[in-house]
């Protein structure tokens, strides 16, 4: 397994372990009915969380052991491939993630239409800056309006549009 994948495996196992422990703590401290016939509300979750914690510990520990083993094997093989040097998360992906989060937040502040046009435009330019900007803008606007009308007229979905609502449209 390459180094990035192994590291991600260890980090994710540790993360799930931490979250599971937190949820287990909530399960023990939650106000629930305990004097009930049969299993109480948190019995199942507790059992599953204990199992999850045990398995994540196992994956994390074996991941660390394997990482050390693979590291020493890589030292023997002096070639370091480009893949080994590449980051866990690529620049385009990190930018896209940030953009997606901003886009979702944007729905509530500038509305669905404007934030979608902006998002499609910016995201498309990040992934392929070669395309002419006007072409990208046309696609962004056209697609957004198509989705907007299809869902608002077809499904009766009311999208958040605070700016248009404030103007009176």
């Amino acid at each position: 397994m390459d180094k990035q994948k192994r590291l991600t495996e260890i980090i994710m196992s540790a993360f799930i372990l931490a979250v599971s422990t937190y949820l287990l703590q909530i399960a023990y401290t939650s106000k629930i009915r305990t004097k009930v016939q049969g299993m109480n509300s948190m019995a199942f979750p507790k059992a599953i969380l204990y199992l999850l914690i045990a398995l994540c510990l196992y994956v994390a520990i074996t991941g660390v052991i394997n990482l050390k083993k693979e590291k020493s094997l890589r030292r023997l093989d002096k070639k370091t491939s480009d893949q080994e040097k590449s980051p866990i998360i690529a620049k385009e992906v990190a930018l896209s993630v940030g953009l997606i989060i901003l886009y979702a937040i944007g729905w509530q502040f500038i509305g669905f239409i404007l934030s979608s046009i902006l998002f499609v435009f910016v995201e498309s330019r990040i992934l392929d800056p070669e395309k002419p900007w006007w072409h990208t803008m046309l696609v962004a606007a056209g697609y957004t309006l198509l989705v907007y009308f299809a869902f608002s007229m077809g499904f009766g979905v009311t999208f958040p549009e605070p700016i248009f609502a404030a103007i009176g449209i």
Partner: protein
Amino acid sequence: MADIINGVISTVTNPQAMLMVFLGTFMGLVFGSLPGLTATMAVALLIPMTFTLEPVIAIGTMLGAYVGGMAGGAVAAILLNIPGTPSAVVTTIDGHPMARAGRGAEALGWAAIASGFGGLISWVFLAFLSPVLARMATSFSAPEYAALAMFGLTIISAVSGKSVVKGIIAGLIGMVLSFAGTDPIWGDLRFTFGNYNLLSGVATMPALIGLYSIPQILNGCTNKNTVRNVKVKMKNFMPSLKSLWKSKWNIIRTSIIGVFIGIIPATGGNIAAFIAYDQAKRFSKEPETFGKGNPDGIIASEAANNAVCGGALIPLLTLGIPGDSVTAVMLGGLLIHGLTPGPALFTEHYDVVIGIFTTLLIATFLMVLIQMVGIKFFVKVLSVPTNYLSAALVVLSLVGSFALRRNMFDVFMTIGLGLFGFFLMKGGFPIAPAVLGLVLGRMFEREFRTALRTSNGNMSVFIERPIALALIIISVAVVVSTAVKRYRERAKVKDEFVI
């Protein structure tokens, strides 16, 4: 039989009926193939649009959307590794590897043909065995449901890929997600963190979109080798008669699985697809090729999920109990047209029942025909440049999450789960088991605890009921055989410390 033949002739010779069923099927295929849209949405959209039509034509249109929607999910699953509908999750496992290997047209062809056969076989059960099978459905109670859910959860081993431990972790994560909300027995609030949006739990569709679509879209941002512009040649699309004959048992077996899962209320295409995939792998002479582009995997998934269509209609028409979420929406459609499903439907509106059988059959044929003729259209839609497609899919995915409950919480949950799913994939954790855990975890806990309560805590309730016992024995056999197989595989590996 004569009634059915007469029904077919009268429908085929009715231009309005044929046109509406065609439009419904086409719409279902389009909705199914676009991630973020589902067959349920298509049917829900058609209810008001078909209000003024005759009942048989209206219901036939909805059935077309149902059948098309279930089949359409395979297109995006194969070409983009993003299931168009929940029931196409399993199709990604072998479908996308085939597309990456330049066999996308073949994969799409198998999906279409398997969907057609699955629909046809389920139609036979619907048309000729409805009352008998409906009686079987009524014998299902908490122990049977719990055993079925348990059996479904053992399928995690089949969809875990190389690491079963990571697959189990993913499955358990799905189950933990399913615990959020109100306890099904006592009504206590669990893991809601004071947020009223979590009172009814984590919604399945936003979670599925988050876990499946967002990671694939993010992966596609850097993957220049993502399959685009699959050159679809008709001769590659249609499987040969020889390969069709070779796959006959897989098609029949998985279709029957789909029918029976569809008959059981509150299940659905995704459960059927998972179970069918596992069975296809177990019966295969080359199980190690599953997950790497084996058409049998696609056949199993698509035959089963389309066979659910006919199966789910059986409890709907005979008992008024919907078999899955789409038929639950369709129940509303029936009621709007003055038709009350149940035993009386067969006596008071027999012509409508024959009409339903007929239009379902026609929709199944049209579904295959439209795909054969129009597959290039679907491929073109999904072959736009990566930069535009990624952005468009994000918009559609988030809109799809929002549209369900008109709730921004679902949108943020989709994004959160999407990021989580992305890093899970990066760490080599499979996503399919998480979906399985989410869908089945809730059902398993609810039915297991209900069974224990009604039997006063006596576990023998699972052994005393034959169907439940049979399912438990099969589940144990599945787990043991998988463990033995993995142990033998690991014994061959000398140096690597495999998880």
